[in-house]
């Protein structure tokens, strides 16, 4: 194990997002010529840690030391100068520029006569080094490239050097859009690069990659580092166990129902694409969970079900009105100019009508009713929705869906970033509503929440790989299925 000098050391770093503790006192360090694998389930705090390392997120507490010198105002420019580069999952390429031009953007030194040629040879050289046979031309417009090739360009660009040194490259799920062959090329290059002195932090859900490529593995859970050891000390099982072992929490004492209920089928859906192990079937009054790693087709299916409305569409049967509770409040849910009451009432406009006009009384009445039932903490329902805390905003979105005439409620990871108190309140409400006959389809990235469900479908690569009834539902099983490597 090389790790001579320490490049970056974080000591007791914490970062809060409202009530959520994204980083809860993390101590982390990385040395020269070292490859550290960072693993953890959704919401463990990996991305936040990365942002702190790259200078794009300021910690609320804790110290950052780079090359022995403590940093006061650590920011992106400082990180750059010190040779810390980051490849995030949201690509930072300009889609309207060519590959060579995008390289230029990263390097101010590439200017003057013949800059395009120099930029082209720089990026081509690096692409050839990392991904031989890549098939990318320097004049290709990035927006026209497939996502896999874009990823290759982004990664290669991070490793290019002009006048600033390169000490550490942080790769966040770099292989998520690459196929097995290209991913292998990248990881081989990472090993070569590390041997040459450039350190790397690798974040990946592919445990095989982590085990093969890292010198040291750090496991995070709930904003803390729970394990850090040499890679050779781990194997798949130990990784999975350390990641998934849940802290003790309240489990719902629910009446155990063996197998699917005998009530009417509300939803029957087949994920598009290759064959799934099962179709998703939801009976009236059931709470169905959708699990698996984030972005493996769960939201896609929910949206398809929503579009199918109360009818048929392809492999989808939906038997009653549908409402959706969005998880990404900003883009999918909130109407930022409106009051809390208006945000709640928007799905039920027909109900709030008295004659030709919408009745303010009915609207306020509905909002007050739900404020009671779901405990929305606000002094005044006519305040702007943004005056609410994140958790309460989410509650308002729940009220919107539950207050409507929909019998099927789709939930798109709605508890993301919500505090535990709110969560417990909402779980109770969901169970109550299900008892009264509403059907819930619940996509969540937190495995503990699945204990509320009657049945869980685990997704991987856009298909269902496992259907677990409540009786056989354990966190180990869910995580195992989530990480099941796709058959070649």
């Amino acid at each position, binding site marked *: 194990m090389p790790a001579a000098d320490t490049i970056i050391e974080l000591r007791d770093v914490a970062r809060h997002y409202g009530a959520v503790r994204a980083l809860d006192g993390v101590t982390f360090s990385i040395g020269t010529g070292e490859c550290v694998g960072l693993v953890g389930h959704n919401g463990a705090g990996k991305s936040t840690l990365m942002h702190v390392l790259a200078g*794009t997120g300021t910690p609320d507490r804790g110290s950052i030391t780079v090359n022995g010198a403590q940093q006061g105002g650590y920011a*992106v*420019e400082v990180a*750059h100068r010190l040779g810390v580069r980051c490849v995030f999952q949201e690509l*930072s*390429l*300009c*889609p*309207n*520029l060519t590959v060579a*031009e*995008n390289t*230029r*953007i*990263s390097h*101010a030194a*590439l*200017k*003057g006569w013949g*800059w*395009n040629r120099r930029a082209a040879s720089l990026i081509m050289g690096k692409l050839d080094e990392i991904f031989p*046979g*890549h*098939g990318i031309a320097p004049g290709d417009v990035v*927006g*026209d*490239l*497939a*996502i*896999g*090739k874009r990823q290759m360009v982004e990664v290669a660009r991070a490793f290019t050097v002009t006048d600033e040194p390169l000490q550490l490259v942080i790769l966040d799920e770099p292989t*998520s*859009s*690459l*196929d*097995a*062959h*290209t991913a292998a090329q990248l990881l081989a290059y990472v090993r070569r690069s590390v041997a040459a002195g450039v350190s790397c932090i690798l974040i990946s859900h592919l445990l095989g990659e982590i085990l093969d490529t890292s010198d040291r593995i750090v496991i995070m859970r709930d904003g803390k580092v729970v394990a850090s050891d040499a890679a050779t000390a781990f194997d798949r099982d130990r990784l999975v166990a350390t990641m998934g072992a849940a802290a003790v929490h309240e489990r719902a004492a629910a009446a155990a129902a063996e197998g699917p209920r005998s009530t009417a089928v509300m939803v029957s859906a087949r994920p598009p*694409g290759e064959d799934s192990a099962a179709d998703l079937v939801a009976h009236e009054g059931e709470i169905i969970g959708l699990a698996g790693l984030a*972005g*493996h087709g769960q939201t896609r299916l929910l949206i398809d079900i929503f579009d199918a409305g109360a009818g048929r569409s392809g492999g989808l049967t939906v038997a009653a009105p549908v409402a959706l509770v969005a998880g990404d409040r900003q883009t999918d849910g909130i109407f930022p100019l409106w009051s809390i009451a208006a945000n709640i009432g928007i799905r039920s406009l027909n109900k709030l009508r008295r004659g030709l006009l919408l009745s303010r009384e009915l609207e306020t009445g509905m909002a007050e009713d739900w404020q009671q039932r779901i405990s929305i903490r606000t002094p005044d329902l006519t305040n702007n929705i943004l005056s609410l805390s994140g958790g309460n905003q989410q509650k308002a979105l729940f009220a919107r869906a539950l207050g409507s005439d929909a019998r099927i409620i789709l939930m798109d990871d709605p508890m993301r970033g919500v505090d535990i108190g709110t969560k417990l309140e909402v779980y109770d409400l969901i169970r109550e509503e299900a008892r009264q006959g509403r059907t819930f389809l619940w996509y969540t990235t937190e495995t503990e929440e699945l204990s509320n469900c009657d049945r869980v479908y685990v997704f991987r*690569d*856009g298909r269902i790989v496992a259907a677990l009834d409540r009786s056989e539902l354990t966190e180990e099983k869910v995580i195992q299925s989530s990480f099941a490597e796709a058959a070649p």
Partner: protein
Amino acid sequence: MTPVSLSGTAAPARRPLHPLRLLRTLLPALSLILILAAIAYLNPRAISYFGFNLMLNLAIPIALATLAQMFVITINELDLSIGTFVGFVGCVTATWLHDQPLLGIAVLAGGVAVYAGLGVLIHLRNLPSIVVTLGMSFVWQGLAILLLPKPGGKAPDWLLGMMGLKPPFVPFPVVAAIVIAVVVHFGLMRSSYGAVLRGAGGNGQAIDRAGWSLLKTKMIMFGLAGVFGVFSGLALIGITTSADANIGNGYTLLSIAGVILGGGEFVGGRVSPIGAVIGALTLALAASPLLTFMHIPPDWQVGANGIILIVVLAARALLGRRGG
């Protein structure tokens, strides 16, 4: 995430439209050629040195105004004041530039400075450019009317001389169009900083993260719009020899149409200087000469412009991508 297959150098699955994409890029040029062909068919005598000179004369100021608009559109903004600004410049040219050259130059430079200042204002206060430039359009209009309540004035001699050039073989407007297009093309599409400017329109956050100043890019692009607006006004007066406060009013919408016709898009930083110039030429030809030759009643000439725009954009939509 379905894996992307990249076996060796096999043709990437994401480019089945290659011949169609090529067609899409050439669409502006094709439209121009089509219109020229139509003119040639209807009135062969128009395809001559003299004919081109006459038909394309007014295309130069339109092309310059279109380029001004293009700079602003590159960074995802819109300039609704370019038309009245051109009118203002025209009035200044025909009065002060002629009578008191130094004052005239100072005022024109001031105009460019105001444009750059608008860019700063829009960036710092995060104001919508549509609203700001709409307001400014009234300001320019008012100033123009104050300067020249009635049409008049006289263009400076040097300007008349320049716009009246008669180069051998190739008509002046064509030469001018080529020169302008080439210069701006090299400046925006080939220079190293031009890549940054365009990148700001494509992914401002990425440019910002890489350490470039977004404020500077906005200021520069708006400043360039001002510069080309000045050029457009100068060229216009050079041709018409006298000025009128309302002379440039139609240029605002024409310039937007020219940029879009030339393959540009409202968001995303995808523009083409050469396309913009071609678009302007197309509009200039279609505006009057073509329709006169087609014996389309003058009532319908304006409408024909609308139809041309729709047809070209529909073609573009059919050939693959959304028009912005």
